[in-house]
């Protein structure tokens, strides 16, 4: 009998067919398996919808849900659809350009099954899938990991309690690009008095782009996204 953990795995994707294919292959190696995998395609222009339709037909031992969006509305909107679609109390998020270690789902969900009611989210560790100088920079500086103050969890590798996410209205869809939407969500959860935890053995391998221009664009996005999150937070405090 296949062992399963009652968690819904949510993966938003956009125009990354090869990386998504690699991730889907790595999900088969998970031990135990997640109960449900939800993939939300953000209106990709490549062959992603065809890949997902073919993947849906394969039996992997977990329930599959695929959402094909009519318009590109960003990862925050996709993740909200995933949260609404999820049928389990725990929702785990992954980016489409990662590969998971086989015990990842067990490691990331274990802390949330204890009695601490204030603990709503758990983040893991991000390592490099390919070794180049930019990926080394990201890994050594722990940029895609929860900071030591645990004030936010990057959605590249995290798990939350669904109920609390629903209560605060999910991700802020006004941040329509990748960067800052996770900070915004976690700030609102923190404001409600909830806390997060980082587990050092829940590992995913991220395929960082070696392109220097993309590095610059990423930081521009992070700067914009984080300040939008701060703007929203200040507005909510003043309201």
């Amino acid at each position, binding site marked *: 009998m296949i062992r399963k953990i009652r968690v819904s795995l949510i993966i938003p994707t956009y125009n990354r067919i090869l990386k998504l294919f690699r991730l889907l292959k790595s999900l088969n190696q998970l031990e135990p398996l997640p109960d449900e995998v939800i993939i939300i395609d953000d209106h990709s222009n490549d062959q992603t919808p065809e890949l997902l339709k073919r993947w849906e037909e394969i039996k992997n031992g977990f329930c599959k849900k695929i959402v094909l969006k009519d318009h590109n509305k960003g990862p925050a909107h996709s993740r909200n659809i995933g949260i609404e679609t999820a049928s389990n109390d725990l929702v785990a998020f992954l980016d489409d350009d990662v590969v998971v270690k086989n015990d990842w789902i067990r490691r990331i969900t274990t802390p949330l099954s204890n009695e601490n009611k204030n603990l709503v989210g758990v983040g893991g560790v991000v390592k490099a899938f390919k070794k180049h100088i930019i990926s080394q920079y990201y890994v050594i500086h722990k940029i895609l990991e929860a900071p030591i103050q645990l004030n936010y969890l990057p959605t590249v590798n995290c798990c939350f309690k669904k109920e609390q996410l629903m209560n605060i209205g999910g991700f802020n869809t006004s941040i329509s690009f990748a960067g800052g939407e996770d900070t915004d969500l976690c700030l609102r959860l923190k404001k409600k008095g909830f806390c997060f935890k980082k587990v050092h053995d829940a590992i995913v391998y991220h395929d960082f782009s070696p392109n220097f221009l993309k590095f610059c664009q990423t930081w521009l*996005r992070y700067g914009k996204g984080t300040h939008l999150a701060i703007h929203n937070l200040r507005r909510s405090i003043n309201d």
Partner: protein
Amino acid sequence: MTKSYLTNEINQNKISEPWEQNIIARRFTIKNISKQMTYNLHVYFREKESLTHIFIFSFLGFIQLLFYTLGAFLVKLRYRDMPSLRS
């Protein structure tokens, strides 16, 4: 020593909530560039990275601060009425 791209705000007197103190972005300042350099020196001595890598990391850190601050600046331009926590 752990670093994140979200660190302490330099001007902390503007912040009223303790949980908010660490989320303000690291800006492009001499002080923050020197913090980056210090972190890279730690990496050099503790992780035994090559000096060439340390120079490249320092350059990337410089670019990171620059573009992060630029992104923050663009948002501030868009939301000029961004309310202060004091108000």
